[in-house]
């Protein structure tokens, strides 16, 4: 995480005001109570507090290093105690050198005040730790809210895309026309196709609240979709699945895959006059589920541009969920279009 003074530059003003007030207040109290001139009192407070203000900004990095998460309470406290002692020692040493250089050194008084500064130093350290932790939690919280909102809208977009592509006349009415044809020639297959179409629509209407579903479910949905297209395109569409069994229970974001197959069909099969293979391979590679979908296509056919909505949505969702921009790879060579998805898995 970045230093809060960089993220929130306005914080610096409050920080400066805070230290001026503390230094001023303490110098007045010290002047009233102790037997020193106001000038010396103010000078001492300015030196000690301002140097702490400067050194204190560095406590941020200590917090990053010694965090609540991943440390037991005892370790957290003892580590900070050690860090505090080192920082305070450095602070007291630097401050006394400056005090001496400026001639604010009042014999007897200065030595006696050291324990108070020592105590004050620990107190300030604790204040720093609490403030920095508060800032960290606040900005994490804000981040999370933003991320959730983004994700929700992307999932909505994916759902909408799936629905839209199903009520797309090219798909829906041609499928219904195929069913109409099959009712006469092959009622069994007509029934099969109606069931596939229903399953496909039900899956995208389900409004799955869960962010992730087992790969098995996504795969089933894809097979319904491909079965429908197979009835329409017959031998022109040839699907090949090479899925390792251990992949089936892996979790992937829902409605992630359908747009990829839609593209494969749209650019590969719709435009082809010869059979086209759509090949799906899936392996589990350590912490990643790697899904590869490839199809042949004819590069000479010009189709409408600007239809990359499906791909863009997938890219953005993976980016938001896993915070990694490299999880989708697109390869376009030798008349073969390949998309590779790497879905991180929690063990």
């Amino acid at each position: 995480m970045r230093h809060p003074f960089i993220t929130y530059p306005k914080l610096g003003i409050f920080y400066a005001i805070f230290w001026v007030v503390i230094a001023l207040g303490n110098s007045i109290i010290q002047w009233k109570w102790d037997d020193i001139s106001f000038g010396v009192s103010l000078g001492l407070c300015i030196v000690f507090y301002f140097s702490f203000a400067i050194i204190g900004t560095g406590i941020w990095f200590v917090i990053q290093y010694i965090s609540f998460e991943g440390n037991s309470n005892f370790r957290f406290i003892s580590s900070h105690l050690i860090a505090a002692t080192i920082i305070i020692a450095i602070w007291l040493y630097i401050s006394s050198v400056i005090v001496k250089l400026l001639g604010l050194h009042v014999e007897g008084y200065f030595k006696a005040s050291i324990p108070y500064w020592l105590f004050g130093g620990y107190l300030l350290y604790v204040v720093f730790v609490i403030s920095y932790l508060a800032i960290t939690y606040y900005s994490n919280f804000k981040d999370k809210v933003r991320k959730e909102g983004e994700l929700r809208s992307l999932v909505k977009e994916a759902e909408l895309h799936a629905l839209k592509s199903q009520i797309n006349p090219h798909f829906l009415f041609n499928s219904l026309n195929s069913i109409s044809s099959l009712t006469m020639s092959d009622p069994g297959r007509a029934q099969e196709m109606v069931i596939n179409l229903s399953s496909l629509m039900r899956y995208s209407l389900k409004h799955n609240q869960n962010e992730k579903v087992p790969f098995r479910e996504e795969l089933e949905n894809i097979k319904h979709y491909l079965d429908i297209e197979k009835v329409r395109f017959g031998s022109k569409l040839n699907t090949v699945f090479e899925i390792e069994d251990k992949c089936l229970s892996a979790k992937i974001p829902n409605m992630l895959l359908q747009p990829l197959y839609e593209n494969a069909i749209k650019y590969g099969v719709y435009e082809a006059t010869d059979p086209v293979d759509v090949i799906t391979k899936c392996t589990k590679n350590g912490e990643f589920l790697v899904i590869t979908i490839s199809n042949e296509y004819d590069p000479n056919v010009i189709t409408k541009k600007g239809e990359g909505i499906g791909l863009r949505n997938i890219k953005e969702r993976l980016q938001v969920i896993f915070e990694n921009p490299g999880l989708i790879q697109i390869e376009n060579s030798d008349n073969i279009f390949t998309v590779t998805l790497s879905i991180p898995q929690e063990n």
Partner: protein
Amino acid sequence: MTEKIRTLIVEDEELARNLLKSYLKDQEAIELIHECENGFDGVKMINELKPDLIFLDIQMPKITGFEMLELLEHKPEIIFTTAYDQYALKAFDFHAADYLLKPYPKARLEEAVAKVVEKFKKGGSQPDIVDKVASFPKDEYLERVVVKDRHKISIIPVDQIRYFESMDDYVMIYTKEGRHIKQKTMKFFEASLNPREFVRIHRSYIVRVNEIAEIQQYEKESYVVILHDKSKLKVSKTGYKNIKGTLNF
């Protein structure tokens, strides 16, 4: 009716063809002579077999039903069969006898066939369909042009076209690789090309804006455009205004 209507189907999906064929089986006026799976095949077979009637799908691989029609030398009656309703207007520009929205019932098909039978009884001949397509959708621009040079059909992406030159009833289309002739009017191209990319500089020329290297004045109030490959094209007065408007100078 003594003579049957010789009918041909152009449809890419097998099941859709099967349905249509089974409907047509009971139509005594119809004699199915051939079926084609795509537009390329369609052009070839229609020009060869000269059917009286075609059933034509619009969305098909490689070239669309409309693009196929532009390449025909023989003009049959047309019944469109498609899942899209937004092409209906365009279909009637091609003087379609009817427009069947998939999925359609048998009764609807019978109606369409009856219309065609009626038309033939009256003995009306099919008017020339080419270039009735001025009503190109406003929000879309032409993306490709399909041409037929002797026995080959080529699909030219619009972004490979450098300029158009009018030649009587035809338009010569110049690309980097060569030139193609197409039976269309300049008016059609002017209306259907993206005005940011193409500019009409003369009665006889429409030029891709990015191909223009220089505009030279060679007499008072008359100009020529010099393209990147050094060819010179005349600019008319209106053309000069058009160029000024497009290039903002």
